């Protein structure tokens, strides 16, 4: 045949034009394009719930969060927000990331009546699983295992569930009722709960015989001790302090307080001390938090550091405790040495510490809170009971990974449930894929550049005077107008703009209207083994341009290119991470829902592969 030219292959970043993408390429593209979702340990579908909030459907936003991260209301307050660090706004805009966490809370605050428990995925299996530890990991695993169809018994040492969410985080950051209602929702899905169970190695051995599987998720309960001081009065391990504070046992602290540590517990302890020591009401006693690295390395973000200072807590960084000075068996001061950060990294991946000779100073104090971390108590799991030796025993959460945070525990709990189910049923019963939907909307994503460039209001905070009552939540929650403003700032990265090279005529009009260097003339695109683009050579002239290529890392979903394209080569498709029991059943489900009119008919044809 004449005039059948050899052309470079078309460039797609999804394995199909519309349908269910099941390849590694689809997963990689979703991860690259939706950085917030990829950064979330629980893979929360952030753009979907933010879009729901923007459209005023808070209940839907809550459901999405409930499905993905189990504790929307809790995480909307205390999440460590890896998503916000990953947000595309960080590098495409100058006003910082979308306040994803606050929006999650908004969705929860506007959902006064929680939905019924999530329905199970599979029919009952009659398999029984015991979970030791009723913290975020255990609760998450329990919920997911019930949805897998297993019978779950949850054993908890304390007389309440919630673990660190109840004991380790102060009420002024996370009100108790918010935790309780979400725990209740999980339990009401049919979980047997046994409180006050002090589980030791012998008990686990019994559970192992009695149940088909045992999950140990007891978290980190052993505080790391400062070798400088043992058995002195006035010295409190951070976690103990926080537990007692939350239980109302510490109402007042007389005298100066020094908190050692820079993690979440240390920061929470310092803020609790500020209340207990009544400094915020004008008492003369000092609360000081000391940390051996800089503020940058502390668990608190800049916003919280501002609040710490506002609560009149002194922050001393780059100081290592050398000696705890006592008098009559009670703490009177701590001697610190100034240090600097080395260029080299320490074993924990943070900069190593270098002492500055002759730079010691004393900080007088009556109370010393040591919050330098905690470890798991592995004594409850002797060698022969550990997962390596005992296949029906599983570990998860902080117990396994060391201290982390709620969102990582949730993710790990879900992972544990998947592992346990795979063990119990001998197969991986749920897989994750990417649905790709062609969106042909006159208004595209419905967003304009105005939305991207909004200056958004800050979170309103409680008056200082009202903070004395430590159950008063400090972050008050956004107004409706502010929620709308924050929510509409999201670029909606789950929409993908791509150029069909077979339709593209290289007119460069898209490049002319593009607000960023997001569309490039390229000669060659390099791809990895899965077909995901890794690099490209930019073309210096029209002759050298093989492709006009949208760099989805830079794409801010403004849609200008699609509107400018004279040949309709640019498509807008929506990607969504879905879990399904099997590909076939999902297809049937989607097709059925479409037929019944429950889903829009916007050109979605299952597996209509175009490439």
């Amino acid at each position: 045949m004449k005039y059948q030219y050899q052309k470079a292959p078309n460039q797609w970043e999804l394995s199909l034009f519309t349908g269910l993408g099941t390849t590694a390429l689809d997963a990689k593209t979703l991860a690259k394009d939706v950085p917030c979702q990829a950064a979330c340990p629980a893979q929360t579908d952030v753009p979907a719930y933010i879009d729901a909030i923007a459209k005023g459907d808070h209940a839907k936003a809550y459901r999405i969060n409930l499905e993905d991260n189990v504790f929307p209301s809790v995480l909307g307050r205390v999440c460590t927000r890896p998503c916000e660090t990953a947000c595309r706004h960080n590098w495409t805009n100058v006003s910082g990331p979308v306040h994803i966490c606050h929006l999650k809370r908004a969705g929860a605050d506007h959902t006064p009546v929680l939905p019924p428990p999530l329905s199970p995925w599979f029919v009952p299996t009659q398999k029984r699983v015991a979970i030791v530890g009723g913290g975020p990991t255990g609760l998450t695993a329990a919920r997911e295992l019930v949805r897998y169809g297993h019978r779950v018994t949850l054993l908890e040492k304390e007389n309440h569930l919630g673990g660190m969410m109840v004991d380790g985080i102060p009420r002024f950051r996370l009100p108790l009722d918010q935790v309780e209602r979400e725990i209740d929702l999980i339990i009401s899905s049919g979980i047997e709960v046994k409180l006050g169970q002090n589980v030791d190695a012998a008990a686990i051995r019994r559970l192992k015989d009695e149940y088909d599987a045992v999950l140990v998720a007891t978290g980190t309960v052993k505080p790391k001790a400062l070798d400088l001081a043992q058995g002195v009065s006035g010295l409190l391990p951070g976690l103990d302090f926080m537990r007692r504070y939350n239980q109302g046992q510490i109402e007042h602290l007389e005298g100066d307080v020094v908190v050692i540590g820079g993690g979440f517990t240390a920061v929470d302890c310092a803020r609790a001390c500020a209340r207990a020591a009544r400094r915020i009401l004008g008492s003369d006693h000092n609360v000081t938090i000391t940390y051996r690295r800089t503020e940058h390395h502390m668990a608190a973000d800049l916003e919280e550091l501002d609040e710490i200072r506002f609560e009149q807590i002194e922050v001393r960084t780059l100081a290592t405790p050398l000696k705890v000075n006592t008098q009559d068996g009670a703490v009177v001061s701590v001697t610190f040495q100034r240090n600097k950060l080395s260029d080299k990294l320490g074993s924990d991946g943070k900069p190593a510490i270098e002492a500055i000779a002759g730079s010691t100073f004393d900080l007088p104090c009556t109370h010393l809170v040591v919050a330098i971390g905690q470890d798991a108590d592995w004594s409850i799991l002797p060698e022969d009971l550990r997962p390596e030796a005992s296949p029906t025993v599983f570990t998860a959460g902080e117990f396994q990974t060391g201290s982390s945070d709620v969102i990582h525990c949730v993710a790990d709990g879900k992972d544990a449930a998947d592992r346990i189910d795979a063990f119990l049923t001998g197969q991986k019963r749920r897989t994750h894929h990417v649905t790709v939907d062609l969106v042909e909307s006159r208004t595209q994503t419905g967003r304009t550049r105005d939305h991207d460039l909004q200056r958004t209001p800050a979170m309103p905070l409680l008056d200082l005077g009202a903070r004395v009552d430590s159950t008063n939540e400090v972050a008050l929650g956004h107004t409706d107008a502010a929620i709308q403003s924050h929510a509409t700032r999201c670029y909606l990265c789950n929409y993908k703009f791509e150029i069909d090279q077979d339709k593209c005529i290289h007119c460069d009009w898209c490049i002319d209207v593009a607000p960023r260097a997001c569309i490039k003339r390229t000669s060659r695109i390099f791809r990895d083994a899965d077909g995901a683009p890794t690099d490209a050579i930019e073309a210096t002239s029209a002759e050298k341009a093989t492709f006009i290529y949208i760099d989805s890392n830079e794409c801010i979903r403004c849609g200008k290119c699609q509107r400018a394209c004279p040949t309709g080569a640019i498509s807008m498709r929506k990607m969504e991470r879905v879990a399904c029991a099997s590909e076939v059943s999902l297809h049937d489900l989607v097709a059925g829902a479409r037929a019944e009119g429950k889903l829009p008919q916007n050109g979605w044809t299952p597996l209509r592969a175009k490439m």
Partner: protein
Amino acid sequence: MQRKMTFLLRSEEEEVKDAGLTLDFDEMARKGVMSKEEKTIAKWYGIYSSRQAGNHMARVVTPGGVMTSAQARNIATLSEKYGQGVLNITTRQALQFHWLKLGGLPNLLRGLAEEASTTMHGCGDVTRNVAACPLAETCPYRRTNVLPWAQKLQKELGDAPDLDNLPRKFKITLSGCGAGCAQPYINCLGLVAVERQRNGKTEKGFQVIAGGGMGWDPYVGQQLFSFVPEHRVVDIARAVALTYRDTGDRFNRATSRLKVVVNLHGIDQVRAWVLEALTEEGKATDDLETAPFEETGKPYPDRPLSELDDLAGTDGKAVVRLLVPRGEVTHHQFRQVAELSEIYGNQRVYTNNRQNLEIHGVEPGQVLELKDKIQALGLGTEGFFGIRDIVPCVGTTYCPKAVTETRSLHDLLLPIVTQDKYKPVDKKVLINITGCPNSCSPYRIVDIGFRGMRIREEETGSVEGYEMLIGGDQKAFGLKLGEFKKTDCPEIVETVLDTFLKVRGADETLTQTVARLGLEPFQQAVFQ
């Protein structure tokens, strides 16, 4: 200072338009720069940025494609002074200056005003140059002379303050008969003169066609009214423009033309809106008809312009047409044409939609003499509306939007199509070449149409190419033969024409042959 947040779904152009910017060209000339916003608004003044940075194009509005010889001389002089002596004729019968520098623009605009010419509304989201049959005044098939109506519409709609911010451009054309030489089916509003007998009297009027358009999504215009009395034309056109103003998409400029409104809402809805607009303006609607009727005018051929050579018009005078290769004349040629029109013609210079010039009102006895003079100028006198009358858009020579150098394809094709073997089909094939999908040279409505694109190679870059259509007509667009590299196009055109010679029926145009036989014989010959 915060950006003004409106959250309105509207294009950036709409934001600029809303800001209500007016331009002082002297001030811009003094500053030496034109901002992005000023460039947007400059279009209303007929000024467009060229492909070559720092250069501008100015489009002179010539309703119906007519200018006086004095205007033509003036334009030639201004072109020499400010535009490197280059003038281009457009397919909508306007004239373009190129290579204009910002510093020269104010004087150019003032210079044009001296002879009552203007570039105002040459571009922009307004009623553009109103086109008409080139032979409006003298064609033997015409029902009425549409030229005065074209000039009237330009004035009434172009100067109306409430019509100077439309969603996008609005194009009107008038045809003297149903042959549609002025292309009524591919314009926003096409007015076709008709006549009929009522109660023993001849009634003259117009058939109104709306919603045609080229571009990537082409639409054939649909009948809005089958008959409106001749004197109602301005009312109707204004009502359509008002309807368009209020219903066109202002978010996406690719879907903002009237053709999309008509296609999206249906012609019946648009008609209802137009009637509403007329009523709101206090105009009558009872004499507008939609029912079919018997047209009683003189039968016309399929392509009158191909058949009429040195036409002896209704006034007994001849029309002499000047074949302008690539649609571009020099200031010298243009001045001479103006002079020839003064000596031999009616002191007017005409442009037509094949990017050629015409001199009307020539004594039949002087035609040969005039032709000699024209040839001496380096312009053609034969082959109008035929195979050698290839119409390329300006392409990458000037246009920032084009992707191919259409004129070089024109030059490649010319030696092929002028071969002796194609003499028999000389008047049966029209070729248009456009450098981008905007179709300034409407490639879908002719026998052979080329649309510029690039063809990518094996990861080493790309080369100029064309999508090639054959068998197009105003009402049935061409069919895609394939996408070819530019260097292959001459060979393919030759193959297509050879095939056409073989398979054509008596007196058929290529389009008629394709309509009868389909693409297949041509595909077979080309791809074999």
